[in-house]
C-alpha cells in the first residue's frame, strides 16, 4: 500500500469518566472525526500500564494515546497525573528503542468536551499520517483502518 493511502491504526485508551463519555457526546452531537481511532475504555487513565502501551505498538498500532480528565478533576484524585508521567516515561522508552516518541501522546479533556474529543482524534490521525506507518508494521498487512 502506498503512503498516500495510509490509514493509520490508532489506539485510544480513554478514561471512563471523561474521554470515553466525551466520545459518546461526540457521537450524540453527530460530529465527524477520523475513523482510525480504536477506543479502549479504562476505569481511569491512571490504570493504563506501560505494558499495554508497548503491547499496542507491538500488536500493530501506528499511534497510541491516553486521554484522561482535566488536571484536578480525576475521579480517583491523581490518576491522570500518574498517567501523564507514565506516558512521558514510555515515550523515553520509545526513544531508547528507536521508535518515534511522537507516536504516543497524552491528552486531558472532560466528559463535556465532545468537540475536543473529535479534534484530538483528527489531530492524532494527522500526526501519525505525517509520520507514516509504524516501522514495526513493515511486512504486515496494514491499512485496515
Amino acid at each position: 500500500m502506498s503512503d498516500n493511502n495510509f490509514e493509520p491504526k490508532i489506539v485510544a485508551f480513554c478514561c471512563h469518566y471523561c474521554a470515553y463519555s466525551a466520545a459518546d457526546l461526540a457521537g450524540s452531537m453527530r460530529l465527524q472525526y477520523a475513523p482510525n481511532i480504536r477506543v479502549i475504555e479504562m476505569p481511569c487513565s491512571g490504570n493504563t500500564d506501560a505494558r499495554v502501551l508497548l503491547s499496542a505498538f507491538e500488536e500493530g498500532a501506528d499511534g497510541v494515546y491516553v486521554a484522561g480528565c482535566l488536571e484536578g478533576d480525576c475521579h480517583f484524585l491523581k490518576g491522570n497525573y500518574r498517567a501523564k508521567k507514565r506516558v512521558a516515561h514510555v515515550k523515553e522508552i520509545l526513544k531508547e528503542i528507536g521508535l518515534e516518541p511522537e507516536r504516543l501522546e497524552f491528552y486531558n479533556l472532560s466528559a463535556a468536551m465532545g468537540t475536543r474529543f473529535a479534534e484530538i482524534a483528527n489531530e492524532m490521525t494527522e500526526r501519525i499520517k505525517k509520520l507514516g506507518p509504524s516501522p514495526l508494521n513493515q511486512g504486515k498487512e496494514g491499512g485496515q483502518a
Partner: protein
Amino acid sequence: MIVAENKPLAEIAELIKDYNKVLFLGCGGCVTVCLSGGEKETEIMATALRLKRKLEGQPLETLTYTLTRQCDPEYVASIENLVGQAEAVVSLACGVGVQYLAEHYPDKWVIPAANTKHIGGSIVHGVWEERCGLCGECILHKTGGICPVIRCSKSILNGPCGGSQDGHCEIDKNVPCAWQLIYDRLKTLNRLDLLTELQPPKDWSKARDGGPRKVVREDVMIG
C-alpha cells in the same frame, strides 16, 4: 531492602545481541518493592527489547518469568525447564540473583539487567535512600537510631566534623549532617549523655574485610 536500578536498554541490548531467544527473569523480592525488577518491570523490559530488535531487523524471542526470590537455591532450581529453553538469561534481580543463576546453570550465559545500588528504603514514592552500610556490627543503639557509618559522609563515629554547616553536610547542602540528626534525636530522648562516651576505632574486620562474609546458623541447618 536491596535497591537496584535498571541498566539502560541500549546496554542490555548490546549484552544480548548474540542471542535470539532470551529468558527475562524478575525477582519477587527487594527489586519488586523498589520497582526495578518485579513482574511488571520484567514484562516492560522484555517488550521494549523485542520491539528494539524488531526495528533493527533481528527479531528477539523472549520468555518472561518472575521468581519468588532469586537468592534462594530452591527457587532458582525450580526453573530448569524455562532456562533450558533460552539461549541466555537476563536477570532483573540484584547481583545475588545473577550469581545464583550463574552458579546453578553453569552452561548458561547470565546477564545482569540491573545495577545494584545500596541497602535502603523509600523516603517518598520513587526515591530510595541508602540507610545501612553493612558494617557487620550495628551501633544504632548508641546513635539514636541514625547510622553514622552510612549517613555521615566520613563515616565518623565521634561527630560532627567541622564540615557540618547549619545541619547540613559540606559535601552538599541537600544532605543532612548525620551527626546533627543524631544530636537532635538524642536531645529529644534526653540521652545526650551517650555523646560523652568516646567511641573507639571501629572493628572493620567485621565489615567488608577479608573476603565474603558468612552467617552460619547451625540450629536451622538441615541434614
